[in-house]
Structure formats: C-alpha cells, structure tokens
C-alpha cells in the first residue's frame, strides 16, 4: 500500500489551507508553553533540592521544650556516639538573625572550620576560598540576597550584628556565595562556629542541633527508638521524611497548576469543537467533492486524523521548545516568582536543565488526548458528508 501519494496530498492540503489551523496552533502553543514552563521549573527545582538533600546527614536531633526546639547540650554528642551503627556525628550551630528595623532575616550557619570534613565541604561550595585570610579576621560568607540587601542598607564591607547581651559584633563580608547556590543559600550567611555562637548567645556547651549518619537503613527505626530512650526531650528529624516532604511540595504546587489547566483544557476543547464545527460549510463542500470522486469515509477520516496529528505535533514541539528557552536559557522571569515567591529575600535562581522523557510524555498526553477527542466528532460529521452534497 503506497502511502506516499496520500502524504503528498496531505501536505498539499495542509499548506494550502494553513489559515484553517492557525487559530488552533496558536492556542495550543500558548497552553503547552505555559504548562511546560511550569513543569520544567518544578522538576528542575525538585531536582536541585533533592540533590542538595542527598549530601545531608540522615538524621538530625535537637532538644525540645514545650514542643519547641531549644539549644541542645553539647554533651549529647558523646551519648549519641555510644550508639552502635552511627557515624559522622557533627554538632551544628545556626539560627535566624532578624534585621530589626525590617522583618527580613538571615540564616546564619556556623561551620566548624577545624573539622576537616566541614572545611572541605565549604571549600567545594566556594571554590576559590582563601581559608587562611578568611580565618585571620572575623569574617563571613554571604549569599547573594544578603549581599544585595546589606548593600542597599549601606553596609558595604562590614556588618554589625547585635548580640543578645546588647553588644555589637562587627563581621567582615569576605565573599559572596556563588549564584548557583541561590536556591538554598540566597539568604544564608556562613561563618566560623565560634562567631555564630557569639551572635546567638550560645554557651560553649550548647549547640543548635546534632547531625549524624546511619549507613545501614535497616537500623533506622531502631536508632530512632534508642534515641527516644536516651533523652526524654529529643526531637528526631529524618532525611527520608524531608525528602518525601519536598517531593510532595513540588507535586502539590505542580498539581495545583495542573488542576487549573484542567479548567483551561475543558474550555480549550470546547473552543476547538466549536471552531472545527464552524468551518463546516466550506469544508463540507470540499469533502463532498472528494467523496464524489471516490474517497470513502475511511479515507476522509484518515485524512482528518493525519491533519490533526500534524497540528498536534507542530504545536507541541513549538510549545516545548519555547518553554525550554524560557525556563532554562532566560531563567523564567515572572513565572519563577510563583514558585520562589514569598521567599525571605528577593531571589534570582538559574534553573538547572532537567529533561525527563516522562515529563514530556505527560505534557504530550495531557494536550494531545483532549485535543484529538474534541476534534473527533466534528471530523466524523464531516467525513460522512453524503457525496451528493457536492452536486448542490
């Protein structure tokens, strides 16, 4: 069965009747563009977040009082070390520093630079960090959002923290964290752990929380039970729960959009149905002519099906390519704020290109199935045009 004649004729018709389909292509491209952008952003964010999460410790313990986290005793570290199967125990000091006149805050993270592991991690984060001169004076590393904010408030090289005992602590802004870290580090300040202690007024025997790893995942539930036995006022946060929470978050936000699209899609289908039924009378005559010269209903249906398939494919490719450019080349102005908006400090994130076939498949099905379904009945109606119509 030679189909090149059919394809030849199909191409002819499509080219000569472009006008018929332009409207549908336009709406389709817009819808696919929006949908793809949303999904690209959300999957890219998810990917980045989960990536950073991977390198985090499996567990975090802190002390609670009246349901709230309070400073954790340093001596807990020894008790935790005694439990079998635990590795890489690291106490942490961090907290939120509120910039009093306005309600913005910075996440201050203390890093123990004498701990080999921590300082290695820091150096891999900030590639060209000159550790020696960093440690020579009291300095800190600031995220981009912090830098912008402080510069706006005329703090160009130093910033004075107000400590809980009323004194001011002047700290030098050594370097800005690279913009790739903006997603998590935009409002972050990294400083030596002693400095962080001073700023938050923590005693020498206090830390914010303690992190550790448990390599054998079969032991996880066991360890949690042991911890609760050891300390009556402990809170244990598991990385696997955080992971789930992140995934849910992005599903939720993405899902919310999809439901919005449901509404759009239904409207879209109605418009299409209307539109393709409207072209009725001119197209009817043409189809009648084809029927009169020997085209069967099956042939006409085949023609309509392929016509629609071309429109679907072209719109899909255009929409996805535009979305890709918008999100990954131009960093999605406007739309990204919906996902990142409400962040503490204004953030500007570069999205990491993440392209999954499953994602593209989802977009395609979401668009193609309603489209084809909406056009099916008008197409059939036209295909069964009695050839006699051609004689009128």
């Amino acid at each position, binding site marked *: 069965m030679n189909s090149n004649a059919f394809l030849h004729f199909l191409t002819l018709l499509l080219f000569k009747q472009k006008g018929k389909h332009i409207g549908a292509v336009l709406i389709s491209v817009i819808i696919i563009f929006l949908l793809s952008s949303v999904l690209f952003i959300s999957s890219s964010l998810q990917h980045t977040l989960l990536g950073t999460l991977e390198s985090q410790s499996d567990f975090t313990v802190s002390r609670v009082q009246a349901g709230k986290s309070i400073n954790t005793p340093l001596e807990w570290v020894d008790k935790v070390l005694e439990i079998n199967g635990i590795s890489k125990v690291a106490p942490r000091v961090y907290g939120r520093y509120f910039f009093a006149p306005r309600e913005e805050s910075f996440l201050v993270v203390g890093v123990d630079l004498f701990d080999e592991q921590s300082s290695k991690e820091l150096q891999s984060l900030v590639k060209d960090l000159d550790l020696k001169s960093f440690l020579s004076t009291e300095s800190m590393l600031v995220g981009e959002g912090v830098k912008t904010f402080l510069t706006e408030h005329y703090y160009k090289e130093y910033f004075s923290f107000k400590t809980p005992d009323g004194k001011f602590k002047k700290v030098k802004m050594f370097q800005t964290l690279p913009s790739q870290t903006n997603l998590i580090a935009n409002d972050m300040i990294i400083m030596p752990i002693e400095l962080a202690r001073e700023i938050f007024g923590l005693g020498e025997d206090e830390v914010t929380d303690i992190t550790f790893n448990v390599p054998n995942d079969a032991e996880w539930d066991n360890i949690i039970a042991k911890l609760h036995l050891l300390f009556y006022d402990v809170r244990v946060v598991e990385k696997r729960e955080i992971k789930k929470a992140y995934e*849910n978050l992005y*599903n939720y936000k993405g899902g919310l959009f*999809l439901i919005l699209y*449901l509404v759009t899609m239904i409207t879209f289908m109605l418009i299409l149905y209307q539109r393709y039924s409207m072209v009725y009378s001119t197209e009817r005559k043409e189809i009648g002519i084809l029927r009169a010269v020997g085209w069967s*209903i*099956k042939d006409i249906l085949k023609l309509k099906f392929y016509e629609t398939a071309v429109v679907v494919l072209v719109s899909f490719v255009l929409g996805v390519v535009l979305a890709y450019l918008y999100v990954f080349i131009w960093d999605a102005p406007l739309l990204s704020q919906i996902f990142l908006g409400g962040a503490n400090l204004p953030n500007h994130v570069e999205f990491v290109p993440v392209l999954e076939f499953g994602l593209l498949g989802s977009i395609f*099905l979401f668009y193609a*199935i309603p489209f*084809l379904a909406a056009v099916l009945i008008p197409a059939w109606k036209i295909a*069964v045009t009695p050839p006699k119509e051609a004689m009128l």
Partner: protein
Amino acid sequence: MNEILLSNEVIVYLLSETVLYILLFIAFLSTLGLLKRWNFDVFTTEQFALENRSYLVMTIIFFVMLLKVVLLPYFVYTIDNLSNLIPGAMCGAGVIKANEYGNPLLSLKIIILFLSGLWLSMNSIDLKAKSYPYLKLKSWFFVLIFLLFSAEFLLDILYFTHIETTNPVSCCSVIFGQTGGANGLPFGLDISKLLILFYLLFALVILTTVSEMAVMSIIASLLFGVIAYYSVVYFFGTYIYELPTHLCPFCMLQDHYFYVGYLLWGLLLLGLFLTIDAAIMQSFFKQPAKSLKRISLLLLSLFVLLCSAYVAVYYFKNGVFL
C-alpha cells in the same frame, strides 16, 4: 491519598482515562441504537444514517484503543514514579500491591487491549464484505468490551484513591522472592523444567501457527504467555539484573536497565495478541491472515531472542551462569 492524586502523572493519567471513557460512552449509546434499528435490507434515510453512525463507533474505538496502547506503558511509568512516595516500594511491584485493586486493574487493562484489537480485526473484515454481515455480532461484542472498560475506569479511580502513603508495602524481593518461601513457581516446577517448557511451547506456537491449526495455536499461545511470564520473572529477569535473588517484573522498566522491560513485555504481549488474533480470524471468519502471522511470529522470536541474549551475554562476560 492526596499526594498521590496531586502528583502530575496521576492527574494526566486520570484525565486521559476520563476523556476516553466519555468517548466510549458515546460509542456505546450509538451501538445501542445500531442494535435496535439496524436493517441492512431497508433503504430508508434512517438506515443510511445508521451506517454513518457505525463509522463513528469504529472511529472512536480505533482512536481509544490506539491511546490505550500508549496509556498502558504510561500507567506503568506512573506506578513506577509513585514508588518514590510510598514507603517500602522500590519499583512498581510494591505500588501495585498497595491495595487490592492494583493487580486486577493491570490484568484487566491487558485483556481489554486484546479484546479491542480483536474487535478492530473483526471490523475490518466486516467492512470488506458487502452487506455488513457481522454488524450485530460486532455490536454485542462492543457492549461486552464497554462493560469491561467501565470496570477498568472504576478500578482506576478506586485504585488511585486508595493508595496509602503511610502504610509501608513490600518490595518486590518479598513479593516475588523465595525468601518468604511462599512464592515459589506454580505447579511445582523448578527452573530447568520451566525453561524446557518455555522453549518447547515457543516451538509449539510456531508450529501450530504455521500449519494453520487455529485452535491449537490459541491454546499454545495462552500457555506460552503464562510460562513466559514466570520465566522472565524467575529466570531471565535475574540475568537482566545480574542478581540471582532479584525477581521482579517491574524493575526492568526503570532507567538503569535501559527501560528494556517495556521492549520485553511489549514484544511478548504484541506477539501473543497477533498470534491469537490471526488464529481467531482464521477459524471463525475464514480469513487467512498470513501477514499477521508472520509479524506475530517475528515479534515472539525477537522476544525469545532478547531473553536468551541476556543469558548468553552474561555467560560470555563471566564464564559462568548465575
């Protein structure tokens, strides 16, 4: 439950199923009209309109079936993705077992695809004749398939709304493995007997198809299908995973195995379907379906080749069997 429903893939999947079901319902109503008033010997405008109606029904069924063929791997892909949200599940196997609707749903989907394909074959034979001889048969058959479609749609909704993300499920190694002791091969077979049956039945399918023994080839195909399933899960799969204890039909659909599962199961299902379809066309409708048979045998041979290849490659790389 909400996290499941709001995950992108599930929304897309359920939306697609809904749209298709609506179309099928329209086809169903039209078919009822056809059954009631069809009379080929009459020359009324109504009869001509009914002939046009029958084209609507066949277009819808064709379109729906085409998309269901795409939606089946998409369903499996969705299930696989959900394994991230359900504790204990590392692949689709655990997710399917998250409630009692999963397995019936999957099996029903495959059966429906088979039956729809049969309907389309029947339809093309009906069209070739000059008096629509099979119209009533076709229509009743579709009514049956529609009931199955309705069950499938219902199960879809039930399944996805009853997945608990708080209850841990078993991973495939527990479901399929022999560590539990309770999931050994059926009929008391062991691996070597299973393999003998596998290759023997394959040969039988070829034989019965080529020599046009229709009923025998249907039986052989069905048996081969069952044995092939067990062979892949309990033997060939272990060579794909390169781990003698990893028994699972779903894990091979994941990306670190290069998605070979889709190819494997696809070849098997399509090959079996075409063989059975050709046999039915031959025995009930007296149509020799030579090209169908050729393609089906080709597909099944590719399937067997692919399975055996994994074993052979492993042996050549490592000098021993698992």
